[in-house]
Each structure stands twice: as structure tokens, then as C-alpha cells.
């Protein structure tokens, strides 16, 4: 995939895009092909670099690729593992992708997940005795509000106080983790949890369960629904259009009278609510209680998912499944090849860097230009 990219030469790249009205269709096709081929090319380059990296550690890259593919999609078991991991990634990616429409770079999904999970657990414990569906809906609503307010805080600080949202959202991650640790070790601790301080359990009966015939919990479906809703919101509503205008040019947006502050607050709230829902699902489908297991790094991988998907909610789903697969194969790489468990994080880091560097390629691939001429 790297080959056509290298052919990009300045004279060809300088040719005007679409020499006439008739060329417009092929430009559109070229852009679409580009939007798919550039990320795939970046993925191939990243795998190549990761192969080189493991070769230095004395492990054959081919073995690595085989185990990556096998661990991610090789069996029904690994596919289920991959899809289960993809579900929080889909939701935390929305936490970066939605504010990104407004030009904000929020990287605090981990914090919203933790806070959402913690408050959802409190709601679940508080609603003990109610019918499971009431408990589950209550947990989801409270978790989403908590996560939403957490990120809306970062957005609000940006708009009303000029505080950089990237830094403040990351600081809020550390503060969220401190609050979680404080609460589950003190006021909200289950006295029975000895080695690993945890909140009381929400109860077996209130778990949200799995999709029939699989081990995959319903979080995956909720995530996909959230992405479809986000896509409709951004691309097919006045709200989404306003947000994109404000993201493109804040001054122009103010000029035409768009309520930029409100747009920022609502969009950040929705992004945070998605991550808060991820936290609620982690509790209601996996952990059953709030504890340090909520801090699993899904929020950080979600940032990568969002960037890989170029902040497009529909593209988030396949990308999250891909990265869920990389995460799922970590155990395989560790057991079969003796690579440390951080190997998949290294691969993610390489992928992130290559994807950002590949921005250069857009509009420069000679292959598409020639077709237009």
C-alpha cells in the first residue's frame, strides 16, 4: 500500500482537482477511495514497523502477524472476545469524536468512563430491590449524566474561561480516578472486599446479560446504536450542521448568530455521556461493582479509535472492532511468543503515529489524479 503513496510527485499533485464539471464524479470517487485506502495503507505500514520491532526482540514478524490475526478473529471464542472489547471502545471513541466536530480535542474519555461507572454503581445500589429493568435504566441514565457533566465541564471551561480542553480533560481523568479510589476505599466500600477495595455489588439479577447464543454483552449493540444516532445528529440535523460550522470557523459561526457556547456544552455532554455509558456497561455487564478494574485504558484507546475513524461515528464501529481485536490478541502474543503484554500498546502507539503522519497523503496520491485527467 505504501507503493502508490511514494509515487506522489509535486507536478502531478499540483494539477487542479477536477478540471471540469464532468470530472466532479470521479473526484468524489477519488476522495472516497482515498478515505479508505490511506488508513489501510497506514495500517499496513504500522504492521510492518511493528514486525521490525518484534524482529529486534528475536520474534519472527510472521509469527506475530499470525498470532495477531488468530487472537483477534481466528476462532469463535476470539471473535467474541474481540467484539466484547470493542464495545467500550466504540463509546469512548464517541467522547473524542463528537467534540472533534467542533474542533475540540477532548482526551478525557477515561475519566468520564470512571465517573460514569462509579455513579451508575451508586444508582444501582441505591435502587436495590426494584425490578432489574428499572435498575438498569436508572444506572444508565445516572452514568450518562455523570459522564456527560464531566466532559461538559472541560468544554465549558474552554468556552467560558479559555482553558485548553485537551489538558483540562486529561487532568480530569486523574481527578476522576482519585475520586473513584477515595470513594471505594472509604464511604462506599463493601466491607467484604479485602484485597481489592470495591463498592457493594449491584446484584446478579441486575446484570444486563449477553446477546442470545453468544458471550457478547449487550453493550456492543448499545454502542452501535449510539454511533448511528451520533451519525444522524452530526450529518442530518440542524444541530449537527451548526456544530460543524462552528468547528470550521468560530468567528463565522458567531457572525451568523450560532450559539457556540451551547453547541460546545451539549456536544461535550453527549460525548461524555457515551463514555459514561461505557462505564455503566462495564459495571452492569462485567464487574458488577465499581473498583479499580474500571481503569482499564479503554478511554485512551478510544482516542486512537476516533482519530483512526477520522472522527466519523460510522467508521468508529469497524475501527473499534479492529482495535478490540489487537487488544484481544495480546494474550496470544504473550503466551505463544513470550512478548510482554504491553506489546499491543506499542502497536497501538505506532498505529496512532503513522495515522497522523498519513494525513500528508490526502490529496497527493498520483493514482487518483491520473484518472481524473
Amino acid at each position, binding site marked *: 500500500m505504501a507503493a502508490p503513496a511514494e509515487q506522489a510527485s509535486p507536478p502531478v499533485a499540483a494539477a487542479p482537482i477536477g478540471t471540469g464539471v464532468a470530472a466532479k464524479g470521479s473526484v468524489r470517487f477519488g476522495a472516497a477511495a482515498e478515505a479508505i485506502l490511506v488508513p489501510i495503507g497506514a495500517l499496513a505500514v504500522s504492521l510492518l514497523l511493528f514486525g521490525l520491532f518484534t524482529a529486534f526482540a528475536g520474534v519472527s514478524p510472521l509469527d506475530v502477524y499470525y498470532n495477531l490475526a488468530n487472537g483477534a478473529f481466528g476462532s469463535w471464542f476470539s471473535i467474541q472476545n474481540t467484539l466484547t472489547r470493542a464495545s467500550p471502545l466504540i463509546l469512548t471513541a464517541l467522547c473524542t469524536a463528537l467534540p472533534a466536530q467542533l474542533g475540540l*480535542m477532548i*482526551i478525557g474519555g477515561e475519566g468520564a468512563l470512571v465517573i460514569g461507572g462509579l455513579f451508575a454503581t451508586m444508582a444501582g445500589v441505591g435502587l436495590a430491590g426494584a425490578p432489574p429493568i428499572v435498575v438498569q435504566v436508572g444506572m444508565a441514565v445516572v452514568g450518562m449524566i455523570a459522564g456527560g457533566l464531566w466532559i461538559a465541564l472541560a468544554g465549558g*471551561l474552554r*468556552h*467560558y*474561561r*479559555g*482553558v*485548553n480542553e*485537551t*489538558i*483540562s480533560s*486529561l*487532568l*480530569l*481523568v*486523574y*481527578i476522576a*480516578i*482519585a*475520586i473513584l*479510589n*477515595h470513594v471505594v*476505599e*472509604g464511604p462506599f466500600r463493601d466491607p467484604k472486599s479485602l484485597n481489592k477495595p470495591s463498592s457493594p455489588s449491584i446484584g446478579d439479577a441486575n446484570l444486563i446479560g449477553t446477546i442470545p447464543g453468544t458471550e457478547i454483552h449487550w453493550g456492543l449493540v448499545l454502542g452501535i446504536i449510539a454511533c448511528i444516532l451520533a451519525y444522524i445528529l452530526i450529518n442530518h440535523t440542524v444541530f449537527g450542521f451548526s456544530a460543524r460550522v462552528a468547528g470550521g470557523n468560530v468567528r463565522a459561526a458567531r457572525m451568523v448568530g450560532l450559539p457556540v457556547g451551547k453547541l460546545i456544552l451539549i456536544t461535550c455532554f453527549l460525548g461524555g455521556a457515551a463514555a459514561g455509558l461505557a462505564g455503566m456497561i462495564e459495571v452492569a455487564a462485567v464487574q458488577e461493582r465499581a473498583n479499580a478494574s474500571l481503569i482499564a485504558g479503554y478511554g*485512551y484507546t478510544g*482516542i*486512537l479509535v476516533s*482519530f483512526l475513524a477520522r472522527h466519523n461515528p460510522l467508521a468508529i464501529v469497524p475501527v473499534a472492532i479492529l482495535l478490540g481485536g489487537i487488544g484481544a490478541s495480546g494474550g496470544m502474543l504473550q503466551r505463544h511468543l513470550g*512478548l*510482554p503484554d*504491553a*506489546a499491543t*500498546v*506499542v502497536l*497501538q*502507539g*505506532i498505529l*496512532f*503515529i503513522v*495515522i*497522523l*503522519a498519513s*494525513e*500528508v497523503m*490526502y490529496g497527493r496520491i498520483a493514482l487518483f489524479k491520473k484518472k481524473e485527467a
Partner: protein
Amino acid sequence: MAGGSIGLWGVPLAVFGGAVRVSTPFLFVSLGECITEKSGRINLGLEGTLVMGAMSGYAVSYYTGSPWLGVLAAGIVGVFMGLLHALICSLPKVNDIAVGIALMLFGIGLAFYLGKPFIQPQAPFLPSINFGWWSSYPQVQAALKINVLFLVGIALAPILVWVFRATRWGLILRTVGESAEAARALGFQVIPVRIIATCVGGFLAGIAGSFLSLYYPGSWNERLSSGQGITAVALVIFARWNPMLCLYASLLFGGAGALGPSLQSVGVTEGYYLFNAMPYILTLVIMILTCSPKRMLSGAPGELSITR
């Protein structure tokens, strides 16, 4: 008098000693980031550089037996991390904040990957100078044990002020950061200057990492750094890109960070985690108080994406 108890006086004393210890990584990262940002780029990846520096410094100190070689190695690794950031950011259309986030994840992952074998063994630590020899109280002696790197950092801050203000290099750096077009018109090479500034920033952040693993807390594990890198980046913003203010802010942060452990040492364990989160809360509060949506921050380099 020897070895007597000094009661609650131990808390401010321990906070002082802790401030000196805890502030050192903040100081080095913020001075490094200050140089990078003066050139008009922001490197959010210093968190990753810090962890890489901690790991490589520890590993080299373990293999060679010399902690100072460890510090040097950490600095060199930091230069490479900075170079990576600088080169990718020099490509057209690439956003420096996003690259920083990527390098943060990459650096942390790589450090955990390569650092696995060094979690158990014990590496030789950096020496410190005992300024408390005159006191018979062990608490006073402990508080006045000051690491050489801290003294280097204290000296570095005024030197940087002078470099920025009065040298040719400082002028070129500030011009490039203020206006790339003006710099080009004057015949300065914008991109090479930014690459060098980012590498120097990485060097200092790498050294900050080696301080974490080789002095305080003084071990290599995966929970070593918890946001010192990113906090220091924020610190540069409210220190108004002034190295001396970076020094004072680092000390303040160090004190805030030392509060939790100090209270714990005299038996106050209530709210331990919340006290440990003090540096982050403090950063956020100070940023809220000092930032403004209306005007550009005074002293901000004109080319900096984060303030535009």
C-alpha cells in the same frame, strides 16, 4: 535532644522536603516544554518521554552501575522522542497536539514493553547532598537531603531567562515562536529551529524521568508516573512561558504533591487519594483563574496552536 520527636512540626517540614523532591520532575519537564513552546510548538507527548526516560535511566544505571550514565541515557532517549515529534510535526497538515497524544501513548507502551525485565532488580540511585548535617533531628536531616539534579534545575531556570532575553539563540527561538513569517523574512530556518527546540525539551523531560526512577520515588514500575508530564505542560501555560515562574510553580506543585504522603506519615490517612490528586486539582483551578477567553495570554508565543 538527639532523635527527639517534633510532633506536628513534621508536617510542614516533610512538605518542604517533599516539595523539593516532588518538584524536580515538574521543574525539568516544564523548563523543557518552555523551550519547545517558545519555538511555537507544543509537545503533549512529554508524559511518554518522561516514562521512557525513567525506564531507560533505570536500565542503564542497573547495567553500568552509574546513575549519572542513566541520567545521560534518559536525556538521549528524550532527544529521540522529541525528534520523532518534531519530524512528524514538520510534515504539512499534521496537528502537533494530536501527535503529542500519540507519542504519549506510544512512549508509555514502549516503556512498559522494554521495561518489563527491570521491575525487580535494584539499580544504584542518584546521590544527594545532606544540608541538614547540623541538626540532630532525623526529620530535619531527611527534609534537607537535596538531590543534585534539583540544584541543577534551580540554576537552569535563571540561565534560561538570560538565554531567552540576551543571546542570539534566544532571539532566534523567540522570533520563530512569535511569527514564522517574520523569522523567514529575517533568514532564520523555522523548521530546524523548532526541531532543535523540541529535542532539547525532550532531553530535559527524559532527565526528569530518570529522577523519578533513580531518586524519588526511586524504582521502576508501571505506576511510576501519573500525569507529572501533562501537569508540567499545563504549568508552562500559567507560568506565562517564563522559566523563573516555572520554577516557583514547580515548587508549589511539589508541595501540593507532598501533602498527601506527609499527612500519611503523621497518621492522617483520611482522604489520602484526594490529597494525592492535589497537583491536578491545583492545576485546573489555577488554569481556570488565570486563563481568559477574551484576550490572548500575555507572553504566549504567537505561533502556539494551543492559545489561538
